[in-house]
């Protein structure tokens, strides 16, 4: 079943997505990333942004995807609560749905500086699904 969670890292936060497919694990991890910055249950998916990224392997593609989300949050001053990912070979197309940051309504916490290659994994889980995770710097 698709879900996300945070895991502990000394000063920062680990984000982990789990899903039936790689794409779903990436989408869930993006939700975990958004939940570092704000309460995602309060974010209406009213505006959609498209991103595209490439990387030589699946793990770096995952980091590039999260960094694309970080970038859109930073330059558009938005927070997101719905993600769709399609992967073809070494390239990824994603859509991010959310709205402009409202500090009070979204219960914001901390901005994410970037996704790192620390504790980075994209792999099959024991139940046959997929896990995608890394630490994000806040």
């Amino acid at each position, binding site marked *: 079943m698709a879900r996300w969670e*945070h895991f*502990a*890292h*000394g*000063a*920062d*936060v680990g984000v982990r997505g789990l899903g039936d497919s790689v794409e779903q694990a990436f989408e869930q991890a993006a939700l975990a990333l958004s939940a*570092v*910055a*704000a*309460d995602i249950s309060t974010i209406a998916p009213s505006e959609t942004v498209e991103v595209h990224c490439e*990387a*030589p392997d699946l793990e*770096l593609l995952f*980091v*590039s995807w999260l*960094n694309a989300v*970080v*970038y859109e949050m*930073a*330059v558009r*001053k938005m927070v997101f609560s719905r993600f769709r990912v399609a992967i073809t070979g070494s390239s990824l197309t994603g859509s991010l749905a959310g709205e402009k*940051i409202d*500090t*009070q309504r979204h*219960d*914001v*916490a*901390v*901005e994410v*500086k*970037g*996704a*790192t*290659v*620390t504790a*980075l994994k994209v792999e099959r889980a024991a139940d046959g699904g997929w896990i995608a995770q890394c*630490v994000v*710097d*806040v």
Partner: protein
Amino acid sequence: MDRHTLERHSDFEWWIKPTGEMRVPGIIYAGEKLIEDMDEKVREQVTNVATLPGIQRASYAMPDAHWGYGFPIGGVAAFDPEEGGVISAGGVGFDISCGVRTLHTGLTADELKPIQEDLAEALFHSVPAGVGSTGAISLSEREMDEMLSGGAQWAVEHGYGLAEDLERIEESGRASGAKPECVSHAAKKRQAEEMGTLGSGNHYLEIQRVAEIFDAKSAEAFGLKQDDLVLSIHCGSRGLGHQVGTDYLKSMVIDGYRPIPDRELACAPIRSELGQHYLGAMRAATNCALANRQIITHLARGAFQRIVPKANLTLLYDVSHNTCKIEVHDVDGSRRELFVHRKGATRAFGPGHPDLTPSLREIGQPVLIGGTMGTESYILVGTTEGEKLAFSSACHGAGRAMSRTQAMKHWRGRQVIDELREHGVLIRSRSFRGVAEEAPGAYKDVNAVAEAAEHANLARRVARLVPLICVKG
């Protein structure tokens, strides 16, 4: 960390003997308790850094070291380009040139009491802070490049602050060798609305009282007296620096030096095209951080001017603790130009260092250690011994003891703010959750860290500061 796996050289110096691929030993400076509380990952990361080519003397960890990205946070490592030395984006960190700046205010704690609420409000409304905040300054592409080349000097030339501020900033407020053309368009776009913003997380602007003087001579030289009020700013290079870190970490993972024990140690030879491009971009991001702290200083001066016109904000010092700088050090009896990475570590030049401004040369460099909003911060001074011990480096802060998720379960933002108010500390923040995650109890004991730095001879304590107003992101 199990201290029995380390070789004890003194009560505050612990060695990891070189084995396997390690080119040099690992050395951790900390007391026994700090070592025991330290994450096992610190040993792993100190060890991994020791395998990188061109590393000199040792791979070091400061008393506040914790699990970082490739390099530990609190890590120091110097590389010689003549021996194939490398530069690492993770060894500098995402928030390039993040640092602390402290200013005298010309006021005492007693003078703050009647205006504490008004000043807190004025500072809170003058300095944009928190997720999604934007500054009032908008730079054209040409102006952005000028800022990235000029740093705090650019800021002063454009009316933000005073010329005399510059002599109290490392490298006189400007990192030379910056290459704005090596900074991506994306990084510049990310910075477009973020000049003069504080950021979030552990970044802050604080009004602090000098609560204790440890070293009267150094305190006098720094212009610090018991119960003086000072202003401290902790922030970095904002979106531009974060994006430079992101861009070059990826480039170094794909095209950097190999083999490395873990790709989070991604690096490039200093004498390579990628290494040189990163150096140019990192220095540009350093200038962005220096300009940013300079602009925030200007905004804070404006707030003081409105509330308490007699205040006179003069710069004590500005240090960066996520850096890679070219410095000359003694190695095996010869003077060498090294690239010194300090990731969550502060430069701490001792007395007589030629790079110090004349007014500080006799006494040594101020080392500014940020604490938490409820506890305290420290001002230390660099020592002569520090050069031999760790290329003149010291700690940078308290370091987290608890994850953000754990902290959120323990505290509520409102409760933290109310409790601190009872202790005389006014918190201003747009985010209750941010305050909860930054609760003082989520951090290690900064007193133990500062004490360890002193006992290890890395730097000597000069003054302890306690917060009275804290603006958080």
